[in-house]
């Protein structure tokens, strides 16, 4: 009896599948873009898809950095309940692709010409084993200075071109009684700043060898030691109360004119926009001194999962919409980043955005586009976090000298590899 019932059910289900019910016109999207500006940026995509008749099922998991979202994703995937797409960062995409749960968008990619328009450095994370598994949404770049123009005018500063210029500028601010450097003392912020310091101290070749290839000799080198010394120098210019501060509060210090400069990725621009400030008149964006011509990037991606066939059409629509030029422009104007394809016109972007787009294009062509180690685009998470630990312990004094920092860095990275 039971057996018959089972067979019956099995048959019924197989019929249901072979009948291939009409495509599900819905995309299910897991993300952590819940704050005002980010949510507004995502609404652009929602609108684009609605025009094509696809409903949007939002699965927001709040928490900047996406730790909570990634835990939720892990649970969903473990239960076999894949979302259509999920916001993902760097190595996470590759981890999931290696686990065999990602979809395949190669056909769409060919049709849309992603191979040519998306920078090769990004394709390292969106293409796995020759198959497109993710659609990059934007490119953030990390090596920026954000400067309050009023304070800059007051102290008579000019754009710093070298690290020594930068230190001289910070000294001027200190003499004028302003907090020279706004920093949030959380490990990822300190490490993000250190990415730029290393690029500035050692140059592009060195950065790539040390932080993308994890070359032992470079990690141990005197240049790395010098980088730590430079970091220590910068830390002397922060206010005593910096530890544990959130990045946007540090940005607010620059916006209000309490501090002169913040070293932060271009998501900081979103904060300036929210405060109704314009680049050039209220604030200035320069590349971190000594890093002009190179871009340290991280990128938000929409990882595409291996969903049932009846949901594939919706997934293709989502991916196509994500990488369409109009969306790339509209979204990134709001988000503060630059488009993930290099052939998007920069007409709608502000001065900083235009510079960002030009820099990205140049860096892509010149081979100086590098993944940020602090942001998880330089090495797998275990290594990236070990790195953040060392930098943070150095900034806060558990690690006392740059010699010790270099030894610890090599040890921590070896241990995590």
């Amino acid at each position, binding site marked *: 009896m039971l057996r018959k019932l089972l067979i019956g059910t099995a048959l019924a289900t197989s019929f249901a599948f072979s009948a291939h019910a009409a495509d599900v016109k819905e995309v299910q999207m897991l993300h952590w873009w819940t704050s005002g500006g980010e949510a507004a940026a995502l609404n652009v995509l929602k609108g684009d898809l609605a025009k094509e008749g696809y409903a949007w099922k939002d699965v927001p998991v709040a928490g900047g950095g996406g*730790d909570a979202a990634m835990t939720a994703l892990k649970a969903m995937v473990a239960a076999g309940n894949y979302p259509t797409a999920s916001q993902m960062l760097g190595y996470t995409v590759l981890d999931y692709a290696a686990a065999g749960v990602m979809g395949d968008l190669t056909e769409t990619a060919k049709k849309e010409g992603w191979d040519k328009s998306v920078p090769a450095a990004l394709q390292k994370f969106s293409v796995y084993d020759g198959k497109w598994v993710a659609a990059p949404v934007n490119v953030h770049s990390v090596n920026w200075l954000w400067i309050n123009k009023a304070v800059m005018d007051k102290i008579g500063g000019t754009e710093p071109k070298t690290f020594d210029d930068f230190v001289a500028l910070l000294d001027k601010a200190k003499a004028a009684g302003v907090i020279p450097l706004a920093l949030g003392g959380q490990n990822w912020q300190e490490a993000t700043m250190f990415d730029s310091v290393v690029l500035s101290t050692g140059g592009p070749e060195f950065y790539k060898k040390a932080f993308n290839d994890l070359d032992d000799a470079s990690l141990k080198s005197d240049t790395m030691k010098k980088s730590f010394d430079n970091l220590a120098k910068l830390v002397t210019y922060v206010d005593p*109360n910096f530890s*544990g501060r959130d990045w946007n509060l540090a940005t607010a210090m620059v916006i209000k004119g309490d501090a002169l400069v913040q070293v932060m990725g271009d998501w900081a621009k979103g904060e300036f926009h929210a405060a109704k400030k314009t680049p050039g008149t209220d604030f200035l964006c320069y590349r971190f001194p000594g890093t002009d011509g190179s871009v340290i990037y991280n990128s938000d991606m929409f990882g595409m999962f291996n969903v049932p066939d009846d949901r594939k059409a919706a997934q293709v629509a989502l991916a196509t919409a994500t990488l369409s030029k109009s969306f790339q422009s509209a979204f990134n104007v709001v988000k503060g980043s630059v488009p993930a394809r290099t052939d998007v016109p920069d007409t709608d972007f502000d001065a900083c955005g235009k510079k960002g787009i030009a820099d990205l294009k140049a860096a892509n062509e010149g081979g100086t586009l590098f993944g940020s180690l602090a942001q998880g685009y330089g090495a797998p998470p*275990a290594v990236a*976090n070990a790195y953040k630990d060392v930098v943070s312990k150095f900034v*806060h*004094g*558990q690690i006392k000298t740059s010699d010790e920092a270099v030894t610890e860095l090599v040890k921590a990275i070896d241990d995590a590899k």
Partner: protein
Amino acid sequence: MSTVATTQIKLTPERSRTSVRSRLQDALPKIVLAPSFAITIVFVYGFILWTIYLSFTNSKTFPSYVITGSRAYQRLWGWTFDTDPPSSWYTSITNMGIFGFLYILICLALGLFLAILLDQKIRGEGVLRPIYLYPMALSFIVTGVAWKWFLDPGLGLEQTLHQWGWTSFHFDWIKNKDFVIYTVVIAGVWQASGFIMAMFLAGLRGIDGEIMKAAQIDGATTFQLYRRIVIPLLRPIFLSAFIVLAHLAIKSYDLVVALTSGGPGGSAWLPSNFMYEYTFKRNEMAVGSASAVIMLMTIVAIIVPYLYSELREKPR
């Protein structure tokens, strides 16, 4: 039971019905308990075993089921002795020691002290008691955020006192790698001591007034009365309070996150923070599982002697 048996004998026609009923009644507690029993077996003990299993594999981002030996434990063991600069694991376990010791000690002392004061038959006890007890009703996240603002030198106590004119006042423990763990103790004690007070108060109320009177007649001073008679009589309460506090201390995670977000350079981590970081953020599930197993062993080391003494005293 016996009433059921007698009815069975008297009412033979209804015998079968009653026997079904009585059997049902016998089984009812088991039926009612079965779901929660099954849930506990699977979600507590099953997952404990699963975690132990995972700690011997090489699981990274996802669980892997190939046993590869005790490398995770070896790494933890190595980190235990990395004191300069301190490894994250070393920081976590020393913080556990500092936090656990001070938290339990201060909560017990403060709780007892407040209970004794409240027990002096004062007016307004009904108002005071809930005031002390209220913090326990808050979640650790709320406590953490409130104390974070209060202790922040740029926002809270220090800033306020500077505005009032005491400009030399300096209290930046929450920003200091060496002292940040003590701010976790402060917030934790604030939250739990009221609850411990309530436990002691209940204990004090349970002490026979005759004993106290007899002691007073014998000429005992108040201090002697408490030291020699009341506190020894409160021994079972001390034990219960200790167990409650010990497990609160070992499982605290949210307080550290909300209050310090890990502290400068990770200096406020407790083992639970270590476990979460390694399992979910660093994709080193095996190391995370191993640290969870070590935490479990610590709790077992505390709970088992307690259970043993409790169960042994029962038949008396």
